[in-house]
């Protein structure tokens, strides 16, 4: 559905240089620390910035060639932009009807009520969490084929995040849709995504299935003596600690089988990201 081929964008103090693919029927996550290039990547996908090099394809077309009907198949939540604050949800309903042929005002209002969003309150009076919920509901309100969600769960409490993740899972049920989502809450991505990209300083440093990360990546806790004698060919990064060494591996099973005395902790996205970013 979406392809970024060697997309480069140069700024004074930052360079984006990434390739990605978002496949039909998959939820793809983009994870990285603040300023790593997540929003820049999303903006490039949406045609809000023009790459200096490389190409981007959405539904087989460059973002600036997308027709109005193509854009009707995309739902977007941006981390730093949204509806005008002067509006109420009741104001937005007729506007969204004008934008999207497949928008149902009554369904949208029903969803807003379900998520306790006031229909007659100005968006300027909404909390961050309410604003996020509104934009997510707007993104999924018109039967989009592709959702591009930049930090959609930031500012939401655990209960609402869980509800939102439930909605997104439900949205994926027909198998024809795709989501690309970024979040700094890695547990959300672990629970939701099929495929994960890690970005650091504008570059993709890891692309793996989430299951592979959770099953194969691990942290070895080694004494200095253990560290000296183990085979290091599957060690991605090692760090000196007070007890000896902490090492990230992408072949946890290899060390389990060959060094049963070594303590191995199952990897999670945060640990993998921290270690890869520093590697």
């Amino acid at each position: 559905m979406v392809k970024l081929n060697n997309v480069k964008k140069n700024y004074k103090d930052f360079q984006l240089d990434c390739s990605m693919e978002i496949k039909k029927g998959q939820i793809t996550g983009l994870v990285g620390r603040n300023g790593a290039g997540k929003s820049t990547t999303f903006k490039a996908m949406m045609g809000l910035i023009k790459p200096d090099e490389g190409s981007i394809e959405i539904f087989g077309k460059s973002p600036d060639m997308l027709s109005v009907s193509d854009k009707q198949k995309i739902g977007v939540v941006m981390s730093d932009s949204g509806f005008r604050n002067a509006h109420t949800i009741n104001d937005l309903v007729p506007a969204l009807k004008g934008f999207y042929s497949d928008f149902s005002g009554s369904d949208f209002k029903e969803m807003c009520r379900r998520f306790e969003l006031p229909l007659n309150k100005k968006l300027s009076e909404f909390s961050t969490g309410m604003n996020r919920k509104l934009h997510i509901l707007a993104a999924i309100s018109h039967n989009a084929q592709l959702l591009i969600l930049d930090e959609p769960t930031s500012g939401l409490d655990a209960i609402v995040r869980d509800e939102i993740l439930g909605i997104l899972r439900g949205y994926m049920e027909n198998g024809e849709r795709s989501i690309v989502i970024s979040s700094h809450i890695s547990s959300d991505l672990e629970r939701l995504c099929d495929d994960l990209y890690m970005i650091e300083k504008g570059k993709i440093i890891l692309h793996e299935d989430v299951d592979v990360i959770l099953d194969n990546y691990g942290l070895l806790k080694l004494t200095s003596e253990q560290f000296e004698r183990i085979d290091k060919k599957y060690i991605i990064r090692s760090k000196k600690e007070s007890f000896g060494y902490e090492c990230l591996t992408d072949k946890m099973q290899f060390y389990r089988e060959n060094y049963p005395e070594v303590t191995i902790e199952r990897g999670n996205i945060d640990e993998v990201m921290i270690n890869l970013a520093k590697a």
Partner: protein
Amino acid sequence: MKGLIIYDIKTMKSSRLFLLMIFMVATLTTVTNGLTFSVPYMTMFMAFSAANTLDSDNTMAYVFTLPVSRETYVKEKYIFTMLFMLAGSLAIGVVSAVICLATGGIISGMAEFWMIETVSLAGGYVIIIYMLPIIWKWGNTNGRTIAVLLVVGGFFGVMALVKSLAPDWERQVMVLKNAADIPKAVPIIIGVLAAVLLGAVSYGISLRIIKNKEF
């Protein structure tokens, strides 16, 4: 374009208190200064306000993720601000005329009314085609400052240039004005053509700014 127009109408609707204030000021200025003062000033103020209630970069980025092309966005903004100014000016004109008559003011007839409206709308038109590209280029706050500086600087610059090139320009203008052989339609045609040309230039510049805008 339909969605965008509704979106803008709803934005303007949310400024109804501000619009009410414009009508109140129009009423007061009509009572104190007459129709010829209130309608042009309020129309131009309305045009200025319409041009200034555009998206900031922050909300514009989101609009471009909606099913709207950048060309449509620019076209819609020109059409919307013009129609808003037109509707506002006519409403102010009618209200002011009624107040003028009710308070014993003088309006010689519909011809005077339309003359005032035409002059007012021409002023508003110039403000819109001047302001839109500037605001899109430099943003709302900086744009307003730059627009004022350009007008003031441009005025004094042109005056200085004219005075140095043609010290007796005032006499020449009077001669031109009094020339019997110039049909009255000529300045009108020149004015309309100039308005169309300047409007097209403004639209072209705006389109280029918006097409190249990154967020």
